[in-house]
């Protein structure tokens, strides 16, 4: 009986001490991020606003002027969540014809949040038979991926999809 009592006593003591530790840990954890932020505040803000980053709107305007991009005829296959931003597979398919006088001339890929949103372009010809391409791209962080197809008649077709990135892929 006395043994049990002793046990209980110790466990209660232990409980109090562990509870105290937990409380202290909580307090510290609440304090720590603030301290870290204070110490590295300058660095964090510097990383967020990169001076020569381009805006997606300006880039689109530079490539297409004021021409309207129709959101149809383009299918985009992208992962919803990309574990690694350095390798994001992208697959573009489209039912647009590839005939002699009516074909897709160019395929553009843009990523909004990259420092240079323009990623790649493909110049196709009727000899391709299909305006479908796929490749792997880098993404700095979670953002939209846009694809624009330009036909030889000057029409623009586009598609957009959001990809969540857990580890960025542009370094720096």
């Amino acid at each position, binding site marked *: 009986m006395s043994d049990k009592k002793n046990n209980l006593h110790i466990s209660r003591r232990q409980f109090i001490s562990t509870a105290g530790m937990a409380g202290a840990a909580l307090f510290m954890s609440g304090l720590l991020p603030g301290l870290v932020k204070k110490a590295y505040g300058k660095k964090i803000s510097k990383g967020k606003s990169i001076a020569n980053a381009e805006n997606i709107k300006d880039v689109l305007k530079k490539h297409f002027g004021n021409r309207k991009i129709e959101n149809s005829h383009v299918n985009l296959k992208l992962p919803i969540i990309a574990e690694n931003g*350095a*390798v*994001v597979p992208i697959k573009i398919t489209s039912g647009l014809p*590839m005939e002699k006088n009516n074909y897709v001339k160019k395929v553009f890929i843009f*990523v909004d949040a*990259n*420092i*240079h949103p*323009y*990623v*790649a*372009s*493909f*110049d*196709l*010809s*009727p*000899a*391709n*038979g*299909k305006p*479908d*391409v*796929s*490749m*792997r*791209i*880098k*993404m700095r962080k979670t953002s939209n991926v846009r694809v624009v197809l330009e036909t030889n008649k000057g029409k623009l077709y586009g598609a957009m999809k959001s990809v969540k990135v857990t580890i960025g*892929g*542009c*370094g*720096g």
Partner: protein
Amino acid sequence: MPKGIGRIKIRVPRNITKGAVIPIKALITHPMETGFRKNKKTGKKIPAYYINDVNVYYGDKLITHCDWTIAVSANPFMSFYIKADKAAPLKMVWKDIKGGVYEKTVQIQPK
């Protein structure tokens, strides 16, 4: 030049019927450095080194041209389609910004 850069694999379907639209897959070994990354030991920036130009010739005609930037993943993979209407070599040429030219030719033999 570091070892292993410019190794190329091109995959073409085994049985090709004449006039069919066939997929071509190509892979090249290349670091595709962005120029933003830092060497963790020395703290120095690693200079940009990437492929910016890809040309695909079917026979003697240029059928596809690609304009790439730093945002293409390392060891770039690309796949596209061609219309196999003649027996001719398919030549792919990659060019990087330091003047490296890598090329490989495969034979397209429709039955």
